């Protein structure tokens, strides 16, 4: 069942370790944090927090079979 806004905000507030945040992403959106353009972890974390606050999952960077980043 989808989390309510209050539940999302509570869990976001209580998240401490990086794993807590990435696990919360899986809990909210039902999938692992996607591959995105940046490898910068701080940028990733702020995108993740923003996604959970807005309840909008992050758009995945689609990579072809022979594409490496």
């Amino acid at each position, binding site marked *: 069942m989808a989390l309510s806004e209050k539940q999302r905000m509570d869990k976001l507030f209580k*998240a401490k370790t990086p794993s807590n945040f990435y696990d919360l992403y899986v809990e909210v959106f039902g999938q692992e944090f996607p591959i995105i353009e940046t490898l*910068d972890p701080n940028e990733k974390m702020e995108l993740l927090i923003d996604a959970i606050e807005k309840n909008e999952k992050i758009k995945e960077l689609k990579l072809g079979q022979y594409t*490496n980043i």
Partner: protein
Amino acid sequence: MSRILEKLADQHEERIINVLYKLEDDVVNEITRATKGNLVSQRLAIQLQPRLRTIIESTFLNEADLLINDDYNKIAKETLDTFGKMPIPAKFKNLTDVDLATINALKTQSFSGFEDIAERFLKVINDEVYQSTIAGRPFNDMVSNIKSHINGVYKSSNTREINELVDFVNENKFDSAKKAQVEDAVRKLHTQYASDRAGNNLRRYASQIAHDSVMQFHGQFTVAKAKEAGLNHFTYTGTLVRDSREFCVNMLNKTLTEEQIRDMWNTRSWQGKSTGDPFIVRGGYRCRHTWIPTDPAWGEETVDEVPDEPVVEEVPPPPPTPKPSIADVPIGFLLNRGSKATREEYDKDFNSQLTDQQKIIVNKLDKPQIVKNNKKGVYRARSQEVSAELNAKAGEWKSYVISHEYGHHIDYVSNDVKLVAWSESNQGFIDAINKDRRKFKGVNNPDLSGRNPDGYYVLSKDALDELFDKIGTSETKTIYSRLDPNKILTQYQRTTLNGNGYSNISDIIDALARGRFQREYSTWGHGKKYYERRGSIEKEIFANLFCLRNDKKAYDLVKTIIPNTVKEFEKRLDELEKL
């Protein structure tokens, strides 16, 4: 006197700068009109040349002509006024026919300085247009390059903020009270247009000529009149500014004989000294000082001792920079877009990331089909496209993205099997990674995929803790709600790296941990989903080793983490070098 000269020099510089904006507009309008905003053909590029010449003549050279004919007579009058106050025979105080001939000759000489620079930049603009036809450069890129050739970082822009910065600099550059703000604005402009930092543009040279021509005209006419009057003592006159040269600071208000001045000129050197006659070029480019003739017999001046040369503490010369034995490998020409300066910067950044051995290898193997200066670091093996950002950073540190992506290219094109990278198919390299992973504390599970008979080894938290301490630190960052800026949303651990290339080391550890390192420590790495892709662990480790090879500190640390993999990697480089 000097203040009048300074004012004229500044006014001339300002007028030349203003006319360069008209020149920029006129040139761009003419090219746009002729091409209708499309790619230029070679025929059109040649047809445009006389029209561009006419534009330069009617704007830039016309303004130079007005400046010289309107104002240089005023400079001559100032010189005569100075002589008028001296206790010398009246015949030396008046304008003679010889003086008129001298003034005209000096005016012609000054104008030829503007003509030379106009000719040089006309060629630069013509070349830019012509080369755009050859290279198929997009119209907007060509226009932007032409604007840069004329006004450098001060070119007009479609961005309001940039235009405001340019206007601020232009309006306040002669206001000493706003010097700090002007410098700040100039810094921002240079950040905006990193490729134009060299400053080889018409504005730079033209404004300097406008300034120096005034001072040099005065210097030449004054010394000619002094010789005529038999005066051979001179006082160094003018005002000091914050960045006055040490030479000018020491010489100010000193009275010396012509012989002393020439002797000092021949035996001393200082920063910014320019070649030429000491009475004409004075302290150097943009110098605001003049030698005014005098005579100690008038009782106003005494002859000074030549000031001692400033004692410079003996500093041992820097060790000679060893010349690279292998020439740099150009890849900037493969960029799909970018000015000449950007392409040069790209080559510089790329080559700074390579050892000589790597340059040999890069030279031996096929180059990518296309290179893009793009924030997104990607290598597409099918189209052989390298996409990597110039001067990429990871926080405050260097991230070797260009050589990382190029490392992928080498990994693919050096392998015998098309679209399979060497690293993902070489058993020695794969085994070395597995062996290095097992050096750390962890748990061995059965490998359900059946690919690895030794099992699926998972690094322990202790091992990852230890590895994280080697590459970075973390601090707590508070995040406020975007919807309600007063509300604390959460706090997370923000990672800071310990050095250049450490983002690439972090990614090597993330590969060993199959994406757990990135996820559990919020550090640099491709992450869990990416490392689920077949061959990604080996390919990323290869690309990271390739990009770290030329950074001793980072590479030494990597050797302690994956020593067996490094050995296999170096073996591969030796093989490729001998191809």
